[in-house]
């Protein structure tokens, strides 16, 4: 695959990872694969912006070599230290050992602690400029979007934003730009990316976007480090980020449960019927059969969460527990919830999940619904009403 031109003398030289299905260990499922986007700017100074995941280093080198010999690289911009963007850095630095690496102080420390390379680091701060010849790069530190070291680079003359992971999506494709693909697919992946990676840092996302909007700089292209490049209407993804970061929701409910002998499942299905009959959008997931990355993605624009679990050893079941542990760390705001479950004797799961909701700041709007063993006709009716009541509060 040849390098792809973004604008005059700026090229995509990254790699497409078609087959990766697990990311960050097992915390993220990449159902549509991903890409590692690196960019080459050819000017008086040859500049590489980010690299790729280590196993794709040869592809990066091949693609750069189609344009210029990698020995000619003068500057490497490291917007983010994480290994999916820096893994090929040692390979690149062997080819151009005198190149200067421009990055934040935290990135310098992190890159050293990852690779222990004796490289020429140049620490940059927000507003610093780097003249490349005809083109000029400037930098905007963006701590915790999504690591302490993160920064955005901006190529002034081309109004091109290189924000690394922000605005990215795990989406493998033979195409590079949003005007060439089914953008609804890409948006699904952008939602999942925000929900699973950036949601906890929403207050910082709002501040950073407002800070950039105040600079009043033109933005023609946003080229993230994963997935598709936003060339057509790039402000759309920025506005979507603002909405997600402000925790704006719609009347929609996500129901997630774990069940032992299908009683909690019976309850879940009836609760969902109550919600549906109230005219509120709803998604139902058995935590053990579902893609958790997708479930979290569906939770991003939902006002209401309903969680259910059977009781085992006085506690909730362990896979819903793991799911809630992850969910709680996302720090959702302005949401309401309720809890249900079946148990044999003393129960425990409902109480426990309610405690997690309280810690996570989810407002409990109705008393938890507990059923002994298998729900009878009357209890099934209660489940239906439980769903209906909750749906009314979500509207």
């Amino acid at each position: 695959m040849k390098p792809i031109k973004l604008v005059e003398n700026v090229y995509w030289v990254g790699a497409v990872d078609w087959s990766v299905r697990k990311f960050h260990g097992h915390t993220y499922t990449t159902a549509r694969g991903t890409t590692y986007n690196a960019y080459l700017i050819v000017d008086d100074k040859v500049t590489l912006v980010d690299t790729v995941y280590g196993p794709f280093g040869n592809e990066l080198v091949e693609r750069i070599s189609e344009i210029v010999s990698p020995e000619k690289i003068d500057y490497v911009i490291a917007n983010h230290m994480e290994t999916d963007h820096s893994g090929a850095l040692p390979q690149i630095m062997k080819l151009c050992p005198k190149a200067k690496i421009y990055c934040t102080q935290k990135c310098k420390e992190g890159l050293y602690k990852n690779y222990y390379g004796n490289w020429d680091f140049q620490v940059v701060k927000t507003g610093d400029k780097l003249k490349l010849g005809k083109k000029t790069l400037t930098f905007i530190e963006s701590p915790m979007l999504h690591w302490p070291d993160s920064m955005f680079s901006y190529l002034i003359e081309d109004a091109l934003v290189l924000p690394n992971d922000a605005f990215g999506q795990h989406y493998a494709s033979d195409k590079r730009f949003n005007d060439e693909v089914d953008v609804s697919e890409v948006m699904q992946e952008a939602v999942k990316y925000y929900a699973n990676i950036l949601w906890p840092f929403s207050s910082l996302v709002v501040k950073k976007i407002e800070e950039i909007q105040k600079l009043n700089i033109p933005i023609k292209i946003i080229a993230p480090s994963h997935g598709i490049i936003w060339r057509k209407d790039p402000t759309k993804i920025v506005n979507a980020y603002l909405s997600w970061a402000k925790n704006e929701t719609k009347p929609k409910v996500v129901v997630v449960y774990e069940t032992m002998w299908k009683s909690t499942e019976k309850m879940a299905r009836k609760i969902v019927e109550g919600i549906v009959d109230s005219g509120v959008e709803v998604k139902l997931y058995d935590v053990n059969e579902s893609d958790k990355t997708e479930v979290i993605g569906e939770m991003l624009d939902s006002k209401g969460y309903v969680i259910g679990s059977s009781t085992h050893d006085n506690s909730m079941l362990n896979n819903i527990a793991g799911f809630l542990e992850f969910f709680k760390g996302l720090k959702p705001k302005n949401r309401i919830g309720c809890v249900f479950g079946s148990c044999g004797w003393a129960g425990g799961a409902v109480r426990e999940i309610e405690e997690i909701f309280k810690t996570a700041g989810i407002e409990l709007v109705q008393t938890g619904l507990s059923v002994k063993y298998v729900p009878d006709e009357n209890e099934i009716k209660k489940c239906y009403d439980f769903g209906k009541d909750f749906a009314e509060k979500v509207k």
Partner: protein
Amino acid sequence: MEKWKCTICGYIYDPAVGDTEHGINPGTKFENLPDDWVCPECGAPKDQFDRVGQPVG
């Protein structure tokens, strides 16, 4: 003196210890930190901190 916690990463600012690496002497109250002081762990600004012991918004 009250400790303050970074809501982004969990770092705790202890006025008794200060943040000497960034020029903040021990004994400096959180309220007296410069406006451009940021969390030494994650870089979050001052307004992302909550007083320890207070309910987290």
